[in-house]
């Protein structure tokens, strides 16, 4: 069966590449887009081209290191760069999603020193001395899922899944400060995470379930 399947493809050189996963392909496209699109989309980012004048004395250094998921990462950060942009486009941490980019939806939620923030509404330069945890950093060192993530699978919490990383981070942050929340407290903690599919109850169920084992 498998052989028949592979011979169905047009492959004049006979070198089929089965190792290209969809995820890697998409990440590659994002990287290419960053370079190709840089001239147009990001023209406002180069020093002084848009804001007028050269950098003022005392303006921040661009080469900084930030602590993300327990690792110190060196990165070139523009003064007007949001944390969501740095995480997604420079550090490859695309688990953090951008929904509205206006602090309204919570898809970009990350923990900064254990407290949830909308990473679209935080300048990366303001977290130089802080510790950032994204959805990639909530699980175990060997890829074990956090109890909140496991419970979300068991409770079929996500529908389309776009808001899920933000819901996970808000849930994990809640259990860190309050290991046994009431259902009402869970609702309050997730109040900043919009779910367009309306799967709120499933997310709350999952976090209540995880609270027992976290």
């Amino acid at each position, binding site marked *: 069966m498998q052989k028949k399947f592979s011979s169905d493809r047009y492959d004049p050189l006979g070198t089929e590449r089965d190792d290209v996963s969809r995820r890697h392909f998409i990440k590659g496209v994002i990287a290419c887009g960053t370079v190709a699109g840089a001239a147009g989309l990001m023209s406002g980012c180069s020093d002084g081209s848009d804001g007028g004048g050269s950098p003022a004395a005392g303006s921040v250094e661009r080469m900084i290191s930030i602590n993300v998921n327990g690792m110190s990462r060196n990165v070139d950060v523009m*003064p007007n760069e949001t944390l969501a942009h740095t995480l997604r486009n420079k550090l490859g941490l695309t688990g953090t999603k951008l929904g509205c980019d206006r602090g309204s939806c919570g898809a970009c939620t990350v923990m900064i020193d254990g*407290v949830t923030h909308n990473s679209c509404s935080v300048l990366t*330069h303001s977290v130089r001395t802080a510790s950032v945890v994204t959805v990639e950093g909530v699980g175990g060192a060997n890829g074990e899922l956090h109890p909140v993530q496991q419970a979300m699978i068991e409770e079929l919490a996500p529908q389309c899944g776009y808001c899920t990383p933000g819901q996970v981070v808000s849930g994990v942050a809640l259990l860190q400060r309050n290991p046994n929340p009431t259902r009402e407290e869970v609702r309050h903690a997730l109040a*900043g995470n919009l779910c367009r599919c309306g799967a709120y109850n499933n997310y709350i169920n999952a976090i209540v379930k995880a609270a027992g084992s976290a």
Partner: protein
Amino acid sequence: MKDMMPSFNLVQPTDVESAINILAEAGENGWAMAGGQDSLDWFKDRIKRPHTVVDLSGIEALKGIRETADGVEIGALTTLTTVENNPIIKEKYGVLAMAAGRVASPQIRNKGTIGGNVSQDARCWYYRSGLDCYRAGGNTCYADTPEGMNREHCLFGASRCVAVSPSDTAVAVTTLEASMVIVGPGGERVVPASEYFIGPAIDITRMTVLEPGDVLTAIRIPSKWAGAQFFFEKVADRNSWDFPLVNMAAAMKISGGVIEDISLTCGAVECVPKRLTVVEDIVRGSEPNEETANLGAGAASRGASPLNYNHFKIPLMENLVKKAIRG
């Protein structure tokens, strides 16, 4: 990939004096940013385009809540979450804790500051979308027209502009008769909350007395209302991440079964938090019952001039006054 906001120079001072100096040097191209929860949206929308952004969040002296000889002093850079959970505020000035806890969403309260929340700009969407209205320095109002969508706009104090004060904590701060500490190039000055917020008749382009280059450094709450009976309610279309349609804050001292003293403030019906002194005068000395509540409520909306779509704010405001008084 999302578009970036236009570039600016970012300066991160660690003391107030440097911040004031940098802002003075930058002049009208400078921007003082506290939590950034509103500032960054202005920049992303390209409606405000400062050249120099002064990030105040690194100034530790502006953070924290301290008890003073007469009350409590809250650093302007204290986050709303800290205000909401602070034991002193919760115990003695509960109305402020309640108000802080009803602002926006948990993520925004974790970053947004009390200083930024009370000083935030008008939320009129015509203004926010970059139209050249009066408030933006233009020569018209888009909200106060026969077709204008003005459901969220004002009942009182319109003067060309019909935008309202959108802050939840501003009504609590006004009710508690706080004073605002402002540092600018000319030094420090202290302004009572009742004079801190200004309407369009005074200056149509600003919501507060803060001049460009000024920084609100602290909010001082006197002990006058400490431990009073507090009430706060915000009515909004959504329970999370929404601005009030009407909000109401009250502090009441009951003695011998009658209202000995009361402070009552209504938000989102005028460009400034509206202290309901007429209602206060009527109910002071009476029992906090249904009859008193009805008398007070009737006086609350006196003088209101609703726009096309915001008549509903009149009964809403009256009902909140009733709830505040009869408990």
